[in-house]
């Protein structure tokens, strides 16, 4: 007797959209702090809300992934792995776009709620970062556009140089408050602004 065809019932999936909330909303208080001689040595700002996605190339698809990502200014995050960030996008929009652009060649996951990016810029930026990382920050070794994975104060940090005196530090949101306390303390001797 022929078996009855198995019919799978369509499963209703309600799309739940949670707005991004900055874990530093009540922590990164705007103002001028630390040494108050002259202009601030560095300025901090929290890049929020930001769309963040990780991209990991499938085996043997490293080149294809890099090519497909070229227009997104991907940030290196390990062998054949990247962070892509974008501003002004709706919840999940960047993730969905990357997922279809990289279909079959890379895995994408949305980190917009999982990570926080702190921007630090100013004439003393290298002095502040050098207190936490062994990475050589001289522009010859670490030019704008370059990224590194490192640790600062025992916290895993993804660091990208975005300008001559400007860096962006990406940390897991659960570490962001203690990381913020640590890095602002390192900037106190130079005086800092929070924007």
């Amino acid at each position, binding site marked *: 007797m022929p078996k009855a065809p198995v019919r799978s019932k369509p499963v209703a999936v309600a799309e739940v959209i949670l707005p991004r909330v900055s874990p530093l909303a009540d922590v990164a208080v705007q103002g001028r702090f630390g040494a108050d001689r002259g202009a601030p040595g560095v300025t901090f700002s929290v890049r929020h809300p930001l769309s963040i996605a990780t991209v990991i190339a499938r085996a043997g698809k490293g080149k294809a992934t890099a090519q497909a990502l070229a227009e997104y200014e991907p940030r290196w995050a390990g062998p054949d792995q990247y962070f892509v960030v974008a501003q002004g996008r709706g919840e999940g929009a960047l993730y969905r776009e990357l997922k279809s652009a990289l279909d079959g060649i890379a895995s994408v996951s949305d980190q917009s709620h999982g990570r926080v990016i702190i921007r630090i810029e100013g004439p003393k930026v290298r002095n502040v970062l050098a207190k936490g990382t*062994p*990475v050589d920050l001289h522009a010859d070794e670490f030019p704008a556009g370059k990224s*590194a*994975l*490192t640790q600062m104060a025992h916290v895993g940090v993804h660091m990208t140089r975005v300008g001559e005196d400007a860096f962006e530090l990406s940390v897991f949101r659960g570490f962001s408050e203690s990381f913020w306390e640590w890095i602002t303390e390192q900037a106190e001797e130079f005086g800092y602004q929070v924007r």
Partner: protein
Amino acid sequence: MLIPCPHCGTRPVEEFTFLGDASVKRPASNDPSSMEQWYDYVYLRNNPKGRFDEFVHHSGGCRAWLVISRDTETHEVFGCVTVRDYGKTKGGKA
């Protein structure tokens, strides 16, 4: 000790997690008669003086598995490659 990660450049040892001897070989047989080889593979380790190949995980960086070749007496580092490349040079599977 500074370790030259093939992905990240030279980094301090604090960023790495050590797993141990990279030269041990997994026994090919699962037969109970090969119990002794398995015991050796799982538990027994030499503690050589001199050059030593060791698995390390760049846990505080690119999170890649690497093999570092170093002198256990002087801490001189001879080189550091990905596990994949190490497998190729040792004729193993990548």
